[in-house]
């Protein structure tokens, strides 16, 4: 099963990405206002979903770690945060590329854009914190605390920026978009979800291996340090 997933997951993810790409670039019609520029949406929106999924997984894993001291949760939190920062950075770069021809600016202080950028920095801080703490138990606890503090910031951050200033494409409901558009978007969303799972599985394994190495040699002062996984 593990082996099959190792081989199958990247293949399926790439196939989905190719199908979504072909649908989005050739089959889907051009937008009546934005022309072809809008097509970046087929990777921009899935990147946003994947990033949101990633930080949510980190948040839940952090809660689980704090409540159960589960080391697998710690590894999952780390893996998902790192992949989330990757998708978040991708999201912002793609959004910026889209904003330039559409709004005429590379950057705009729209609530979603700003929230995504700030969240990206908050989770970059989370990753930095992990690097700067050597004791595995402290690192796990503190990182979990940081992830929770950053995640609960999202709603209030979003509202505050929205009040502060707003200008963004309103999300289209299914009815106002062409069905091929929806279909292409869904293919890509699935592709990104699979990419996410693939990346997290790889990164999770690295995290577990590092944990095993660290926990195998506990500090002499506390021999009973190794917690049950």
């Amino acid at each position, binding site marked *: 099963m593990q082996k099959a997933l190792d081989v199958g997951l990247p293949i399926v993810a790439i196939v989905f990405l190719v199908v979504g790409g072909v649908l989005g670039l050739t089959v889907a019609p051009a937008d009546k206002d934005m022309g072809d520029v809008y097509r970046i949406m087929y990777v921009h929106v899935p990147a946003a979903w994947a990033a949101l999924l990633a930080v949510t997984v980190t948040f839940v894993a952090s809660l689980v770690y*704090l409540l159960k001291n589960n080391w697998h949760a710690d590894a999952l939190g780390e893996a998902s945060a790192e992949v989330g920062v990757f998708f978040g950075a991708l999201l912002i770069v793609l959004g910026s590329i889209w904003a330039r021809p559409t709004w005429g600016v590379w950057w705009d202080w729209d609530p979603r854009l*700003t929230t995504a950028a*700030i*969240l990206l*920095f*908050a989770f*970059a*801080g*989370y990753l*930095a*914190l992990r690097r*700067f*703490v*050597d004791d595995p138990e*402290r690192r796990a*606890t*503190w990182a*979990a*605390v*940081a992830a*929770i*503090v*950053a995640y*609960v*910031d999202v709603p*209030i*951050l979003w*509202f*505050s*920026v929205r*009040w*502060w200033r707003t200008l963004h494409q309103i999300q289209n409901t299914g009815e106002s978009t062409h069905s091929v558009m929806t279909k292409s978007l869904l293919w890509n969303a699935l592709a990104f979800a699979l990419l996410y799972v693939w990346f997290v599985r790889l990164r999770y394994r690295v995290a577990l291996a590092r944990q095993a190495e660290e926990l195998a040699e506990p500090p002499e002062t506390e021999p009973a340090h190794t917690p049950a996984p």
Partner: protein
Amino acid sequence: MTAPGEPTPCDRARGVALLTATASVIRKDLLLEWRGRARINATLFFAIMTLLLFSFAVGPETKSLAQNAAGYLWLAILLSSVLSLGESFRIENENGALEGLRLIPVDARAIFLGKAIANLVLLTGLGVLLIPIAVALYGAEISAGFPRAVLVLVLGCAAISAPGTLYAAIANQARARDVLLPLLLFPILVPALVGAVKATQLVFQGDPMGQLDSWTTLLVIFNLMYWLLCLVLFGRVVEE
């Protein structure tokens, strides 16, 4: 076990003990700051220097300085807060003072509340000194009344101190603590910064549209969220 929600005498005693311990921690922190006044003075001069630097960076044009006075004021407070927050835990880690507190034992919640409130008092004090300087330097004026200005100042400083205290406790025991604290703290403070700056701007420039209450509410919600959350999480941060 008693019915939930009904405080037993035992609960009440514990509540009183928590408050007493909190008050002791506040007293200890403020006394330490008072005895080491050189530190407070240095932070104050740093903050004033920041205010001056903003004028140099933006240029001497009075109109834009007056318009952005609130933003500069809060950035000066925010930048100085990183110094004073870091300092408040550096002295705890010297000679294992924090460990000593935990061993007495002092409830972790009392340590958090005590240190966060002490930091709030220090920051508010700093703000009280900075506002007249900002008013003088940038040509702003307090048009919404003094009580409102103080309320906004206290709420903004409280929003910095709760997560600030939690993160300072973490950063101070990590490597690269000087860069880690702002890196962790600044992103989550964005809503508080936006709220505090907007509210202060309205306090300075007048509030014809009646928006001051909305921004104050935003600050109140931010404070409620983070004081509660950090209170709950702090115990895990300082546990051994």
